[in-house]
């Protein structure tokens, strides 16, 4: 696989580990590498960035079988180089959007405040292309459980509510030749351990004993939010 243009984050699967030092240097030491997974459609066919509908909420599970992430193709390019400072934890530099117009972003969909997340039954956290009453604006990710608001154009930084830190960034790699997308790791503070601890009972029931914490590798199927959850709760 030849070297690709992208991204401050990119490398192929085979060289991902070797690439880590360079990536770490560029992102302030804040990339947490996970297994590399290509984003695909439900049938496992590679997804192209330009096929994503702008401002539609897509979901895929990464870096574990049970941990959902939002995938968004924003209206505008999302600029790189933004310095994000969680209340507790190290600052990191957000790499911005990927794709030919730098508008594709991904974030863990687990609210770092009190771990609300999209499940098959319902989701109180969602991206809002229209105006959210709670947030007073459009184009934001809102968690209706306790009113946290995140800005996906700027690294999902906190715009309002009790959240102590941005949503965890999912580091994406984009192949400009094929327009394919890959998830390669995370940036910011991970809350997966707390998530597993809080929902162990439900996750074991839903995924089978222990299966919820299997790492996602190879392929990560993407769904629309409407397919992923039965009840999208907005506020």
């Amino acid at each position, binding site marked *: 696989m030849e070297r690709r243009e992208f991204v401050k984050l990119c490398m192929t699967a085979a060289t991902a580990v070797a690439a880590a030092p360079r990536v770490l240097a560029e992102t302030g030491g804040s990339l947490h590498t996970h297994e590399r997974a290509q984003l695909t459609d439900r049938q496992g066919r590679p997804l192209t960035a330009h096929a994503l509908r702008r401002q539609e909420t897509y979901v895929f599970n990464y870096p574990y079988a049970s941990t959902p992430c939002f995938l968004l193709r924003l209206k505008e390019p999302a600029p790189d180089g933004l310095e994000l400072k969680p209340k507790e934890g190290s600052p990191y530099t957000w790499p911005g959007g990927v794709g030919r117009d730098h508008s594709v972003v991904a974030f863990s969909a687990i*609210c770092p*405040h*009190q*771990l*609300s997340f999209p499940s098959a039954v*319902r989701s*109180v956290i969602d991206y809002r292309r229209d105006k959210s*009453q*709670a947030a007073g604006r459009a184009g934001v990710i809102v968690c*209706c*459980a*306790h*009113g946290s608001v995140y800005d996906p154009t700027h690294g999902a930084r906190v715009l309002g509510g*009790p959240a102590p830190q941005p949503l965890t960034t999912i580091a994406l790699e984009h192949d400009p030749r094929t327009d394919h997308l890959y998830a390669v790791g995370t940036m910011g503070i991970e809350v997966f351990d*707390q998530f597993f*601890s*809080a929902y162990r009972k439900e996750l074991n029931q839903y995924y089978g004993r222990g299966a919820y914490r299997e790492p996602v590798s190879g392929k990560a199927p993407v769904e629309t939010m409407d397919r992923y959850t039965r*009840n999208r*709760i*907005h*506020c």
Partner: protein
Amino acid sequence: MNKFSRRSFFKLSGITAAAAATTPLAACASGSDIPHAAGITGKAADLPKAKGPRVVVVGGGWSGLTMAKYLKKEHPDFDVVLIEKRGLFMSCPITNLWLADQVKLEFLDHSFLDAAKNNNYIFFNATVIDVDRKSRKVYTEQGYLKYEYLVLAPGIDYNYSAIGVTDPVDVNTLKTNYPAGFMPGSEHLSIKNKLAEFEGGVFVLTVPQGNYRCLPAPYERTCMVAAEFKKQKIKGKVLLLDGNPDITIKKDGFHHAFDELYKGIVEYQPGAIIKSVDVAGKTIKTEFDSYKFDDGAIYPRVRASRLIETLGLVKPDSPQFEANIDPFKYNVIGDEHVYVTGDARPMGFSKSGNTSNSEAHYVAKVIAAHAQGKEIPWESPHTVCFSAVMIDPLESISVDAHYKYNEKEKHFGFYDVKMVQNWSADRGQANLEWARGMYRDMFS
């Protein structure tokens, strides 16, 4: 009570010589007229030895549970013990929804043991009877604990004399037959049973004056009881006697619900200050009127837990017997090793779950900073309060607010208030997820 003496202990803890006399074997063995209690006060509680500065948190409600978890997170050197007299946690928030069968009892009940296991502190199922602040000891019925820091989060008690009920027989009958339902456990189960058995007539609910536990809750309960009446086709009305001139929070939302959803079922009487209750005659008397009822739940005025008074910590000008603490740092005035949080605080914050939870996040940081010789800036508590007004589907209204200190008037007022008074099913689901998130924060 800095000076601790055996005498004061017995007086305050209510253990009398008469009680001791019912245990003749122990009395003979020790030769004392008050043998059991004396043995308790002299003995350390049977707990693991402290591995660091011990912080004792009294009260396993929303404040104490959050506090115990976050003290440990903020300063892992702390050895944290949570003392709670109940063996099982039952949430007060969401009980109104449970009364109307929108959640199961399992939704409200949680294990103190899980909270302690998941967050690396000790759960001590005991009752606090006294504190000696000089020697930094907390006394329980199972022996004493030494502390470096003490956090008292004992919650509320009821003040029946404020609604003109003073005879202990009447107070007891009122508590037993028409429980308020704001201190969870048996009170709530009894109210649920009442609803299941009610065959018609007047079901009375009351709203006290002052800063009572959860300002919108009596109105939410009115909606939930009325919804049950509607669903079960019960011929009767819900009479809501409000000691205040009007609904204080989410006023439009509740008024619309009473008028649009429960017309002919809810009768709302504002400005109904209760002067007396004739328990046998099932009649409530206000200044100008009297109201007959068939059943109901009577919410008297609220005061801080009696433990605050027992420990001599009441703020002199507090009409609700709340604690005398620094309003920004929460320590008892003149003692930076004892703190009071949650509904026993004197500040006019909402006495509600989210408020106590967010406050405890902050106070845990205050205490962790103090232990390290530091100070941190004040953070406002955060009130997020959903109220259900409709069932099947569950629909709710909500408020989100912070507080700001008014230097001139020397008190805290609401700040940055976002009120949503048009009910929706989305907000109903958010209402439930709000609670799940809070339980996760305390127990996971």
